[in-house]
C-alpha cells in the first residue's frame, strides 16, 4: 500500500514535469513569432478569414496575424478605434478604415506614413481612381483593399443608350412613365444619412460645382451648381419621376424597387450588380451600368467609397504589418475577394485580366466608373459638414424648405463649424 502510493506520487511528479515541458515548448517558439493584430469591421473580418489563414501558413513561425473583429456598423467601428487611440495605448497594429476617416486620423497623428514602404511602381499598379483618397497633405497613409463607387444602373430593355445629362434622364423617365412601362423613373438614396451626401456630391460635381475646395478651404454649396443640384433632386420628387418614399430610401430600398421592375434608373454601388443578376431577379439580363449624369462638357462623377489598411504609429511591428497589408491587397488576394465576395478590385492587373473579363464583362464598366471617381471633402471635420448637408438636403427634399434657402443655410453652418473648430477663417 505504502509502496504503491509512493510509486503513484513519483508517477504524478513525472507527469507534471512532462506537462510543464510540453506547455513551455510552444511558448519558447511563440516568443520568436511576431504577433500582429489588425482591427477590421465584422464583414471584412469574416470575408478575409481564408486569406488570413493562408498568410499565417505562409509566414509560419515568423508572423502571426490576428484579426480583431470589430462592430458591423461603420460609425461604431470608428468610435471603438478612436476611444482606444485617444487613450494613447493601441491594442492593435493596423486598422482597416473607410475613406472618409483618413484626414481625421492622419491629422490627429495616429497614423504612420507609408511612403517608405510603397513606391511609385506600387502606386502605378493601382487601377486609375483607386489611388485617390489614400494620402493626406502629401503623405501616403492608406493602402486600398476594395473600391466602391456610385453607378447609374439602367434598363437595357427599355432604352438603347443610357442618359448622359440630367435633362436626358428626366425626359426618358417622363416618356417611359407616360407610356406606362414603369411606374417610376429614377430611384436613389434620399434618406437623411451618409448615402444622401454621396448622391449630392455626384450631382454638384455633375453640374460643374464643388462641395468643398480643400486648398482654399472654401465651400460651394450656395453657388449656382450647388443650388441647381439640390433643385434638380427636389424636382425629381415633385414631378413624380422619383417616388415620394425616396426620402426614406437607403441602398436596400432603392435596390428592391429597381429589382422588382418598378423604375427605369437606379443610383447604387457595385454590389447591386450581383444582386440584380441573381437567378430569381425579375430584371436579370436587362441591366446596364453607366456613370452618373452630368451637364454637357462636364466630367461625370462617381463618389468614391473604399476601405484600406493603415499602420498605426504606436505599433512595434511595422515591417510585419506591411507584409500583411501587401499580402491582403495583392492581385491574387483581390481576385479571390472579387470572385467570392464581389468586392471591386483596386489593382490594375485584374481589370486587364482577359480571363476575368470574359467571366465578368461588367468589369470594364466598373473600371470606367472608378476612373471618374471623386472624393468627398478631404477634411478632418468631414463628418460634421456632411451631417449639416444631409439635414439641409432632407429639408429641401421633403418640401420643408426651398433648395436655395436650405443650401444657403448648409453653407453658413459649415463655415461656422470650420471657424469654431480652428480651421482657417475666411
Amino acid at each position, binding site marked *: 500500500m505504502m509502496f504503491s502510493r509512493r510509486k503513484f506520487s513519483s508517477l504524478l511528479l513525472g507527469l507534471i514535469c512532462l506537462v510543464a515541458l510540453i506547455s513551455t515548448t510552444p511558448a519558447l517558439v511563440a516568443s520568436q513569432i511576431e504577433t500582429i493584430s489588425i482591427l477590421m469591421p465584422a464583414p471584412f473580418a469574416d470575408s478575409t478569414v481564408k486569406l488570413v489563414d493562408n498568410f499565417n501558413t505562409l509566414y509560419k513561425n515568423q508572423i502571426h496575424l490576428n484579426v480583431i473583429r470589430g462592430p458591423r456598423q461603420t460609425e461604431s467601428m470608428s468610435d471603438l478605434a478612436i476611444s482606444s487611440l485617444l487613450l494613447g495605448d493601441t491594442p492593435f497594429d493596423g486598422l482597416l478604415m473607410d475613406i472618409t476617416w483618413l484626414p481625421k486620423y492622419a491629422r490627429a497623428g495616429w497614423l504612420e506614413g507609408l511612403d517608405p514602404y510603397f513606391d511609385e511602381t506600387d502606386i502605378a499598379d493601382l487601377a486609375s481612381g483607386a489611388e485617390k483618397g489614400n494620402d493626406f497633405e502629401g503623405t501616403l497613409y492608406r493602402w486600398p483593399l476594395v473600391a466602391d463607387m456610385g453607378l447609374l444602373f439602367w434598363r437595357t430593355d427599355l432604352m438603347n443608350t443610357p442618359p448622359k445629362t440630367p435633362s436626358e434622364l428626366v425626359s426618358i423617365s417622363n416618356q417611359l412613365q407616360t407610356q406606362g412601362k414603369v411606374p417610376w423613373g429614377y430611384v436613389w438614396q434620399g*434618406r437623411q*444619412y451618409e448615402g444622401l451626401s454621396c448622391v449630392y456630391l455626384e450631382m454638384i460635381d455633375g453640374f460643374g460645382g464643388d462641395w468643398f475646395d480643400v486648398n482654399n478651404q472654401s465651400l460651394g454649396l450656395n453657388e449656382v451648381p450647388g443650388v441647381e443640384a439640390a433643385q434638380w433632386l427636389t424636382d425629381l420628387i415633385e414631378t413624380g419621376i422619383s417616388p415620394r418614399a425616396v426620402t426614406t430610401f437607403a441602398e436596400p430600398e432603392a435596390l428592391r424597387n429597381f429589382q422588382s421592375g418598378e423604375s427605369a434608373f437606379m443610383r447604387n454601388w457595385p454590389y447591386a450588380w450581383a444582386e440584380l443578376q441573381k437567378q430569381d431577379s425579375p430584371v436579370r439580363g436587362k441591366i446596364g451600368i453607366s456613370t452618373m449624369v452630368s451637364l454637357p462638357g462636364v466630367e461625370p462623377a462617381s463618389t468614391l467609397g473604399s476601405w484600406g489598411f493603415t499602420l498605426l504609429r504606436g505599433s512595434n511591428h511595422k515591417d510585419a504589418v506591411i507584409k500583411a497589408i501587401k499580402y491582403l491587397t495583392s492581385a491574387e488576394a483581390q481576385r479571390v475577394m472579387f470572385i467570392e465576395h464581389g468586392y471591386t478590385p483596386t489593382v490594375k492587373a485584374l481589370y486587364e485580366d482577359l480571363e476575368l473579363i470574359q467571366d465578368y464583362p461588367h468589369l470594364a464598366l466598373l473600371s470606367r466608373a472608378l476612373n471618374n471617381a471623386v472624393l468627398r471633402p478631404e477634411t478632418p471635420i468631414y463628418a460634421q459638414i456632411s451631417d449639416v448637408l444631409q439635414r439641409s438636403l432632407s429639408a429641401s427634399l421633403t418640401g420643408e424648405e426651398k433648395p436655395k434657402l436650405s443650401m444657403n443655410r448648409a453653407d453658413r*453652418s459649415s463655415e461656422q463649424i470650420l*471657424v469654431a473648430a*480652428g480651421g482657417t477663417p475666411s
Partner: protein
Amino acid sequence: MILIALLLPSIIFLGIVFGFPLLSYLWLSLHANSVLTSFRSIFNGWANWNRFIHDYRYWQDFLQTIRFSVASVGIELLLGLIIALILHRPMKFRGWIRSSSLIPWALPTTVMALGWRWIFNSPFGPIDQFTTALGAQSLNILGNPSTAWIATVYSDVWKTTPFVALILLAGLQSIPADLYEACRLEGASASSCFRRITLPLLMPYIGLAAMFRLAQAFGVFDLIQVMTGGGPASSTESIALYAYLNALRFLDFGYGATIIIGSFILLSILVASCWFFVHLFNRKRSIMITK
C-alpha cells in the same frame, strides 16, 4: 464667522467637484480645441457660441430631450401614483409584491436597453414577428423617426416607474390614517377624499420625484446610446449624446464643452422658471385656503 468656518469644508468640496469642471469647460468653450488644432487650445472668441446659437442639430436635440423628459416623467408620475396607491392597500404577500415591483429599476440601464432593442428589432424582434404573422406590414419601430422616440420613452417608463412609485409610496405612508377617517365620517366620497387629502399631502413627494427624474431624463445618455445610437436621422439624439459625439466622434473638444455649458445655462433657466411657477401656484393656493 464660526458659521462660515463650519460651511467651508462643504464649500471647498463643492468647488472641487462642480466649480472646477464648470470653469474649465467655460474656458474651453472660448477656445478652438479640435483635431484641426492638433488638440491645442487656441482662443477663438465667440466662434463656438456663434455656432452653438445657429446649430440646428443642437436645437433639434434640445427639443427632443425636452420631449423625452416631459413625456417619460409625466407618464412615470401617473403610473407611479397608480402603482403606489395599489401597493399601499393592505393585501396578501404585500412585501413580496412590493419588492418584486422594483426589479426593472434594479436592472442596469445598458442591459435593459439592449433587451428592448431586441424586442423592437425589425424584422427579428417579437413585436415585428407578431405583426407580420398577423399579415400586417413590418412596423420597424426603431427605424422610423416618428416612432423611435416613443420606443425610448416606453423603455424609460418601464425602467423608472418603480422608482417613482417607491417615493410616492413613502409619501402615502406618511399621511395619518385619522384624516381619512374624518373624511369618511363627514360623508365625503372616495374621490373627494383623494382630491382633498391624498393629492395635496402627496404634493411634496410628487415634486421631489419629478425633480429627480427630470434632472436624470434631461441628461439621458446610456439608454439612447444603446437603443438607437441617436438615430434614425438623429430623431432620438439627446443633448448628452450630442456632446459626447462632438468630443469623441468629431474630436472637437471646444465645441463639446460649449454644448455642456450652454445646456447647463438653459437647464438652470428652466429649473428656475419651474420653481417660480410652483412657488406662485403654492402662494395662490395658500391665499385661497386662508380665505
